[in-house]
């Protein structure tokens, strides 16, 4: 490279690198540092350093319980999302060009309307005078409207709803990358459509499945707004606790430590998942 082009490169990269270093790298660093500080009265954090926050985060059975609960809920959401997403992904991958846009918008729509509007919609649907209650009443299945909000199933439902696009899109991509000739070959060799699906399509789509599951799991573990709005006091997950510590209790060091513990737990489970899937995907690696 010539000297002038090194200057040019520097000039191009400087704004972005400065912005990201100051307002991304330093804040993350600050958060890690914060988790090692002592708490204080009247201020968000104290002057000294300590590891006590971590001991409390992992040692206190309450917080450990919440962590485990969050991990379990996250896994449940990932699995449910996968089950609902796969049929949609199959459809989206096969649909013709003219219809593709329409269905694509349908799939992406939960993302585009923002978390608040989504949850608001669920609140309307599931409210006392909402359509679901009305339908159940009308069908004679219940005598009185049910209190459908502020419980875990509703939170899971709403989260699965918003995470569907995140699962559908990677799987759709993986499916579209499968050479159609492979399925034709399978059929010509005598396999039924179900067999072809199990032995050819599904395995070859695993890289997309893994990507989707990883993404959804991470998102589910860090969901805050939906559990707050639709779960209220009855659904206590890690992000909720963390925000409480930060905004409510003004205990920033402990909140930071909880956030770090959550992140580490998330990374651990994702790592585990990736490793176990690696044996499966290694054979298919070239197609992903």
């Amino acid at each position, binding site marked *: 490279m010539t000297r002038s*082009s090194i200057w*040019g*490169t520097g000039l*191009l*990269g400087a*704004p*972005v690198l400065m*912005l*990201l270093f100051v*307002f*991304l790298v*330093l*804040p*993350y660093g*600050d*958060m890690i540092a*914060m988790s090692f500080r002592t708490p204080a009265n009247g201020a*968000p954090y104290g002057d000294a350093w300590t590891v006590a926050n971590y001991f409390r985060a992992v040692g206190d059975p309450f917080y450990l319980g919440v962590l485990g609960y969050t991990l379990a809920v996250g896994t449940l959401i990932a699995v449910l999302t996968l089950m*609902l997403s796969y*049929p*949609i992904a199959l459809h989206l991958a096969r649909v013709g060009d003219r219809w*593709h*846009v329409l269905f694509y*918008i*349908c*799939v*992406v*729509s*939960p993302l*585009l*309307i*923002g*978390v*608040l*509007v*989504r949850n*608001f*919609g669920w*609140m*309307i*649907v599931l*409210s006392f*005078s909402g*359509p679901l209650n009305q339908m159940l009443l009308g069908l004679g299945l219940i005598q009185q409207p049910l209190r459908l909000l502020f419980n875990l199933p509703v939170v899971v439902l709403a989260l699965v*709803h918003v995470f*569907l696009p995140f699962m559908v899109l990677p799987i759709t991509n993986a499916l579209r990358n499968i050479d159609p000739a492979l399925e034709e070959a399978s059929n010509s060799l005598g396999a039924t459509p179900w067999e072809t699906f199990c032995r050819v399509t599904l395995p070859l789509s695993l890289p997309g499945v893994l990507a989707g599951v990883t993404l959804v799991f*991470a*998102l589910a*573990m*860090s969901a*805050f*707004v939906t559990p707050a*709005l639709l779960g209220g006091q009855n659904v206590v997950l890690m992000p909720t606790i*963390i*925000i409480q510590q*930060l905004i409510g209790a003004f205990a920033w060091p402990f*909140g*930071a430590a909880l*956030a770090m513990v959550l*992140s580490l737990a998330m990374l651990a489970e994702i790592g585990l998942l990736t490793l176990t899937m690696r044996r499966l995907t290694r054979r298919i690696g070239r197609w992903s």
Partner: protein
Amino acid sequence: MDRALRYVWGLLLALLYGFLLLPLVVVVFASVSGGQVLRFPPEGFSLKWYARFFSDDTFISALWLSLRLALVSALVVSLLAVTSALFYRRLSARWRGPFRALVLLPLLLPEILTAIGLLFFLYRLGLGSSLFGLQISHIVVTLPFSFLAVTAALQQVDPTLEEASASLGAGALETFARVVLPMLRPGLFTGALFAFIVSFDMFTMSFLLKPVGGNTLPLALFDYLKYDFDPTAAAAATISVAFALVVVLLVERSVGLRRAF
């Protein structure tokens, strides 16, 4: 047997797509309800809730703030994305991965972590609860979208075109302005639109970094829902949705949704 299976499959798909669209449909219909109470199906048709929305100062100023934040984000992020994409292209293969990961960090990590980190950091800088802090956080979080769109577009530009331009006497700046930039336009446009939408709908970040006395539209809606549960909120929500729809249509018109991703 085959036909029955196809019907079942079709029904399943219809249910799933219906599930995807349900909250959206419900909110839009509720916003034009003629009655007093938030219910679905609505009784009658009326636009009075929109009138309520537009005459409510809290909502209007929140809408205004959201629009400003989103516009500034889209503009700044587009500019940064262009310089970053050019920078990225000049990097050797070794540095490309790390740089890309850095820019995409807000996408890769949970939003709540980024929000918390910024909360601490801005507070220590004295910028906690400031408009500037909130704007910066929006920029940092929407940059990945624009970066992805612009780098993808830049990759499509044939390098021999730039060589041809140079051989004809155009310097680096002129080559960029006359050859590269026009070809980046679709990617820039897409990236800017997505940045706009993401900023407009952002909740968690704005929740933690809220400027004193100010509210974005999602935050105003959140506050409103804590006390009132009437269709004005649905009107506010539908307006957000309308923006999103406009964005999607603009992207589809200019670039095509398939190519945008």
